[in-house]
């Protein structure tokens, strides 16, 4: 079945901002799909609200819309672009849901758009629990046994069939309220009574528990001719009970016989056919009872998923790319395998290595949240590693996590916690497993507590025993055999150094002297049965190196590792662009990264891909093999920067800004001196290493002060202290994060406007790419603040000062490439807050707003070109500021709904996971779109509840007036209401939480407010403030916590009442 020629233009809907559970794996799949369709000659129209993605680059699709992912905006795009088809399966759950909504709203029919990939019936059958269960029963597959229960007696009867524990879910309650797990009769009666009462239809779903069962996933593909293949089997290290996204997973499955694996394969194929997914990739999840092999189907995703991205990286089989081709009519056997070239894509990849994925969590960002892992995903990123054996792979995966705790690992364990840490899954379980084994716990004991398959535990036990044996041996008298065997088992040089009480580099030298060196094997989809033509490599300590480095001029790019808050997809965007640029400039690009979700770890992105941990050891191994002409560290965020100086000192040629300059910018003393020399002001500051010292400094500076550790990422462990107690508490609690570096204390500039600047410098000329004005005041982390291009409220004079300072700093730091500076403007005076001589997280946003590929130019500069050579691209002289043709607002997206009990107020600690961009002809329109995309749309009318501190009252009154003009009803707490009434506006009064009832929280819960403006009062956070913000969050009512945010919201309301729904593609905006 060949390519469909009746289709010309295909719409792809992306997955929107990065949120927990839907991250940059969909940038990877969407990008692959766009590229695949384009290469087959289709016109691709892409919509995604997330500007940090590669897929929204103007080159990836023919028409790129960074617009809200809502039905009205999508209809407008469809009306304008008239696509022939919509590919529903590559944009995650968001893309799939929107496809269904568009179909159900009749929009696809109205404009004659065909749904390709998965049809609406198939999507519904897969997504609706009951329909799905019926479908599985029909084909003879079991699901966990369940029944809808309407009385306690019925429940007691059913428990006799399924046994304890039972999972209970009341029907139609908000967020699963009233549900739970019943472990005994008492709890069962209790939860059932409550659940039946709470449920509006007086029903509770009672389900057999499969906690502790073995969990598996199969990635399946199907073409229109009904050819079906399994791409990869994945076994969860953590048994059922922990969300797959929060589980350590292993590919291929390790503990199934062929018979059992084929049982699962047959079931997956039957499932796919019954659900009726026409083409593309799907995944099916199973649980298996380890006692008797009984298997139940848990769920299936009729689309490319997070696991598909993992499976693609784990096997070298590009699922999304192939899925896109299948959707337009190709058969699997008509598509070539990219890696072997000579064999078709219609086969099942086989692995001669083991892949391990470990999630990355960040509970430390959300004080008060519960780190227990359960059925709701909580991790923000993940790492994958490839090793010849499970031991090697697990060890590499742990190294890839960069948890920064390596050196002190023994100190952080508490023997009395072992049982608790093993039984209750949290991010600590993996380290505690190793610790328990070191303490002599047996595999059987640990299996009893964790239900983790004994095979995995034995592998870990062997590592634990070997480490003890090695530690007992003398330091460096290990012979070649011992050394090779230790490396083959996966020990890092740093671990061996710890065992032998020496340094990592000594171990390295010693083993190299015995010729124990890393070699590189290829990921080739076929276990070496056929020759591989794609250098997709991982390290091992085998006997032959398959890297086959070329003699071309080549540059290594260090990626950004696992996604974290503060170091996310933006940096992957930069790394990918660096790679594309290198290829454009005729250099070979070599990518190093360990994040399976990203575009950078697609074997298509760079000339060569090393899927490796970003550690000194692994990077040196690659350099030893490749002997690169240069290494780029400034695109991957903090991860490569921490390696920059050690690498430079070992003679690795780092191109771009000198690592010493990076150090100057990060070392408070050196940086302070530089600012003094340049006569550039910064907030008064000092540094301290003791609590008393810190309090003294704070007193001298005057409260409030900003306290933070010397090296920061995403504002980690940063607080604004309004009093001495807070400073003391900080010094007590924050020491573990300071890594023996002093704590920095700055005077906090209240009410200042914050400005972010991205600039390019070739060492002589400085081109300012963007002056971004933050919408929230200083004090809110720059990553958590909405910002706008162009800056709209600062004076020409201030702008000139900013340009001047930026130029001076860039030249002084000898920046070659990108830099980012944060400024605060207080009473017209410009202060420098922070300088980062590297790519910042705003690079993709600025690139899309200006239409100028900043990362690409930066790479040119690093290769020795001058800014003047890029005049054709920038459309500007070598210096000055790039023009911005419209208003572009970037807004953050927060994961607060995943963390119960956490206060969603904004502060200096970054907590957003992703971002969106809104485009408009005016600020209000752009901001309104950005807020809509971020999932917190500003209402056009309704009731607004306002409560602000005295300080903010004058501005709040102005906001109230505007909202009133647009027909909003005003409701406020007493003080705010008085201020509003004094201005001659009508306003109802409502009680504060501690005053009595009905109060503000009741008011919000009753759905009587459509907008909440509730600013912090400064010194302390009152519990009712937190309660109001949590309630607004729960009831999905936009809650604005800063007064400048409220002013912006008023602009958005004005736009909503004035501007029609209109959309612009990036290609239109920038005249491509």
């Amino acid at each position, binding site marked *: 079945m060949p390519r469909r020629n009746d289709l010309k233009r295909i719409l792809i809907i992306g997955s929107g901002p990065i949120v927990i559970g839907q991250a940059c794996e969909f940038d990877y799949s969407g990008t692959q799909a766009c590229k695949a369709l384009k290469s087959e000659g289709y016109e691709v129209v892409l919509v995604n609200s997330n500007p940090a993605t590669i897929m929204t680059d103007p080159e990836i699709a023919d028409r790129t819309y960074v617009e809200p992912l809502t039905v009205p905006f999508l209809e407008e795009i469809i009306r304008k672009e008239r696509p022939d088809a919509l590919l529903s399966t590559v944009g995650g759950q968001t893309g799939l849901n929107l496809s269904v909504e568009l179909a159900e709203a009749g929009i696809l029919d109205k404009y004659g758009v065909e749904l390709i990939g998965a049809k609406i019936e198939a999507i519904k059958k897969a997504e609706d629990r009951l329909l799905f269960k019926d479908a599985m029963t029909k*084909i*003879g*597959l*079991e699901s966990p046994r369940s029944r809808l229960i309407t009385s306690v007696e019925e429940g007691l009867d059913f428990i006799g069939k399924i046994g304890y524990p039972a999972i209970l879910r009341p029907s139609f309650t908000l967020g699963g309220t009233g549900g739970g797990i019943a472990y005994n009769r008492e709890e069962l009666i209790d939860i059932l009574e409550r659940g039946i009462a709470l449920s509006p239809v007086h029903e509770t779903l009672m389900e057999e528990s499969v906690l502790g069962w073995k969990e598996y996933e199969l990635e399946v593909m199907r073409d229109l*001719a*009904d*050819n079906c*293949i*399994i791409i990869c*089997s994945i076994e969860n290290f953590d048994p059922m009970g922990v969300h797959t996204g929060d589980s350590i997973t292993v590919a*291929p*499955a*390790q*503990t*199934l*016989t*062929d*018979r*059992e*694996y*084929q*049982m699962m*394969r047959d*079931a997956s194929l*039957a499932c796919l056919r019954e659900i009726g997914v026409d083409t593309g990739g799907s995944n099916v999840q199973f649980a298996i009872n*380890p006692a*008797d*092999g*009984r*298997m*139940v189907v848990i769920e299936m995703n009729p689309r490319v998923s997070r696991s598909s991205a993992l499976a693609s990286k784990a096997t070298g089989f590009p699922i999304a790319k192939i899925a896109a081709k299948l959707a337009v009519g190709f058969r*699997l*056997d008509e598509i070539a395998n990219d890696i072997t070239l000579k*064999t*078709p894509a*219609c*086969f*099942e*990849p*086989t*692995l*001669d290595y*083991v892949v391990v994925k470990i999630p990355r969590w960040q509970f430390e960002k959300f004080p008060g949240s519960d780190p227990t892992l359960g059925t709701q995903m909580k991790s923000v990123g993940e790492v994958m590693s490839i090793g*010849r*054996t*499970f031991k090697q792979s697990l060890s590499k995966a742990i190294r890839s996590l960069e948890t920064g705790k390596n050196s002190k690992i023994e100190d952080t364990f508490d023997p009395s916690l072992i049982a608790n840490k093993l039984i209750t899954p949290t991010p600590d379980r993996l380290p505690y497993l190793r610790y328990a084994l070191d303490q002599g716990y047996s595999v059987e004991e640990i299996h009893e507590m964790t239900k983790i398959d*004994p*095979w995995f535990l*034995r592998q870990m036990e062997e590592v634990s025993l070997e480490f003890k044996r090695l530690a007992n041996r003398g330091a460096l008298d290990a012979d070649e055999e011992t050394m090779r*065997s230790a490396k*083959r088992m996966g020990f890092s040089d740093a671990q061996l150094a710890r065992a032998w009480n020496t340094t990592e580099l000594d171990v390295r030298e010693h083993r190299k002297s015995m010729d124990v060196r890393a070699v590189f*094997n290829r990921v080739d989809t076929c*276990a*070496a*049965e*056929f020759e591989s033509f794609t250098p997709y490599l991982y390290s091992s300590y*085998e*006997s*032959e190196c*398959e890297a086959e480095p070329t003699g071309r001029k080549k540059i290594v790019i260090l990626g950004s590792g696992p996604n974290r808050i503060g170091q996310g997809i933006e940096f992957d965007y930069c790394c990918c662009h660096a790679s594309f640029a290198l290829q454009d400039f005729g250099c070979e690009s070599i990518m190093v990264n360990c994040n399976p979700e990203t575009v950078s770890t697609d074997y298509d992105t760079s000339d060569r891909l090393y899927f490796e941990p970003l550690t000194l050891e692994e990077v040196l191994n690659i350099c030893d093999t490749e002997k690169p002409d240069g290494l780029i560290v400034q695109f991957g965020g903090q991860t490569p920067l921490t390696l920059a100086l050690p690498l430079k000192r070992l003679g690795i040629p780092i191109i771009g800004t000198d690592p010493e300059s990076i150090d100057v910018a990060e070392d408070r003393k050196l940086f302070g001196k530089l600012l003094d020399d340049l006569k550039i002001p910064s907030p008064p500051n000092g540094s301290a290493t003791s609590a008393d010292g810190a309090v003294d400094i704070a007193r001298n500076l005057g409260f409030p002060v900003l306290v933070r550790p010397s090296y920061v990422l995403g504002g980690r462990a940063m607080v604004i202290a309004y009093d001495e107690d807070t400073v003391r508490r900080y010094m007590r609690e924050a020491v573990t994060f300071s890594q023996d570096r002093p704590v920095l204390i700055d005077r906090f500039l209240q009410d200042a406007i914050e400005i972010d600047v991205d600039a390019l410098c070739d060492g002589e000329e400085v081109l300012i790419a963007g002056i971004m004005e933050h919408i929230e005041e200083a004090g809110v982390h720059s990553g958590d603040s909405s910002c706008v291009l162009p800056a709209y409220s600062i004076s020409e004079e201030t702008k000139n000062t900013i340009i001047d300072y930026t130029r001076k700093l860039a030249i002084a730091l000898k920046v070659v490439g990108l830099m980012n500076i944060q400024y605060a403007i207080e009473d017209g005076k410009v202060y420098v807050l922070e300088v980062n001589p590297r790519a910042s997280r705003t690079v993709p946003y600025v690139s899309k707003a200006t239409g100028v590929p900043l990362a690409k130019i930066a790479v040119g500069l690093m290769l020795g070109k001058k800014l003047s050579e890029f005049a054709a691209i920038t459309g500007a002289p070598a210096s000055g500021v790039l023009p911005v043709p419209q208003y572009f607002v970037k807004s953050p997206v927060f994961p607060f709904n995943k963390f119960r009990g956490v206060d969603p107020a904004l502060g200096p600690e970054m907590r957003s996971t992703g971002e969106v961009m809104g485009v408009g002809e005016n600020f209000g329109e752009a901001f309104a779109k950005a807020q809509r995309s971020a999932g917190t749309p500003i209402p056009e009318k309704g009731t607004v509840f306002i409560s602000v501190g005295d300080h903010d009252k004058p501005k709040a009154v102005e906001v109230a007036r505007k909202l009133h003009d647009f027909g909003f009803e005003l409701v406020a707490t007493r003080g705010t209401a008085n201020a509003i009434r004094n201005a001659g506006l009508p306003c109802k009064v409502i009680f504060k939480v501690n005053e009595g009832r009905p109060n503000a929280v009741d008011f919000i819960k009753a759905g009587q407010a459509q907008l909440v403006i509730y600013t912090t009062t400064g010194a302390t956070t009152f519990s009712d403030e937190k309660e109001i913000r949590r309630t607004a969050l729960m009831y999905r009512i936009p809650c604005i916590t800063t007064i400048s945010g409220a002013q912006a919201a008023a602009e958005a309301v004005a736009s909503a009442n004035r501007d029609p729904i209109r959309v612009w593609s990036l290609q239109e905006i920038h005249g491509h």
Partner: protein
Amino acid sequence: MGLDFDREYPAFLPRVRTIIGSDVARQWRGVVKLKGCGVTGFRLADASEANLSNGRRQRLSKAILALEDGRVFEGRAFGAQAERVGEVVFNTSITGYQEIFSDPSYTGQIVVLTNPQVGNYGTNDDDPQGAQPFIEGLVVREFTPRPSNWRSSLSAEDYLANCGIPIASEIDTRTLVRHLRSGGVLRGALSTVPQSAEALIDKARNAPSMTGRDLASVVSTKTVYDWNESVPRVSSSELLEETLEPRHHVVAYDFGVKRNILRRLRQHGARVTVVPSVTSAEDALALKPDGVFISNGPGDPEALDAQASELRKLIGKTPVFGICLGQQVVGRALGCTTFKLKFGHRGGNHPVLNKLTNKVEITAQNHGFCVDPDSLPASEVELTHFNLNDQTLEGFRHRNEPLFCVQYHPEAAPGPNDSLYLFEEFARMMDEYRR
């Protein structure tokens, strides 16, 4: 029920002779001596207990694999302390090592598994494809003697050690496979007893070549027997078709037949009589079969021309279905030539296009020889299946007579079940022929 060693362990005696002075060999000799005494219920578990300490003792000793071209790979020894020679071949299946060990088609071969983790799920009583392991030796990247699976009854180490088979672990199997892929399969010698590499290289060079070798006669049953077992259910959740009441009588030529073929034949409604590979066409027809099945097996089909000429006599007299070596022998019966592939097809992921349905089947494969499609008489034979990786012939059928063959393994075990329809087709063919 006693075991008939001539039937269940046909390749047993020559095998024991190659084991050098190990406890295992002595044990096995002991068992053999018991044979005439009508010993009942010899259990593998007995041997495993006795062998345990032996297995443990070898952990730190070295294993060496030497190839005829002088290349030597060193690893760690598991399994029996023994020295074996054979053709070194690799299999790319991720799962199913026990089925591979026990597939009679691997007779005379040292098997390299590309899946690096082997032994994980132990071995059980349902999965073996023959009465014992048939491989000469096992070469893997990492072997574990400690199984974890609810069905495991014996560790993979004991399963092999009990039959005197050595295991080399911690071998750089990827390099080895790349070597075999580029140079073609080689003869090799595998030792887990102290031995010099030079001596082993010599032994590899002196090992018999697979070309021209008749191994099917060695592993074939010597007596006629009935097969009545269908596919056993191993989990309540298996999607397993029900076993049909017997309505056909199939005579199965045993060239080294895998149990799952017999089970699938039975499942699809056949009463099966297994006959030795040397059975004459007359004797086979005398059993009044509704169809004749020609099995898989080891060795070079060229060495089986006597059998091929007997099979020639069956064509047109009764429906014929051949698998693997069965296809090669039937092909030769039709006058075609066979040739040896550079490194064979061994794995569970080979795409095969069925020209009749225009659909792709993912198949299990295990063959070193192949039918040359150009040598088949086009007037008599229609080519039906092709391997999409290298375009080699995977199946054909006779244009005028009830006969079809496939080169791959529709019975799976190990491998995907995409091609089970062929057993249905055979049953249908027998139904139609009867009418």
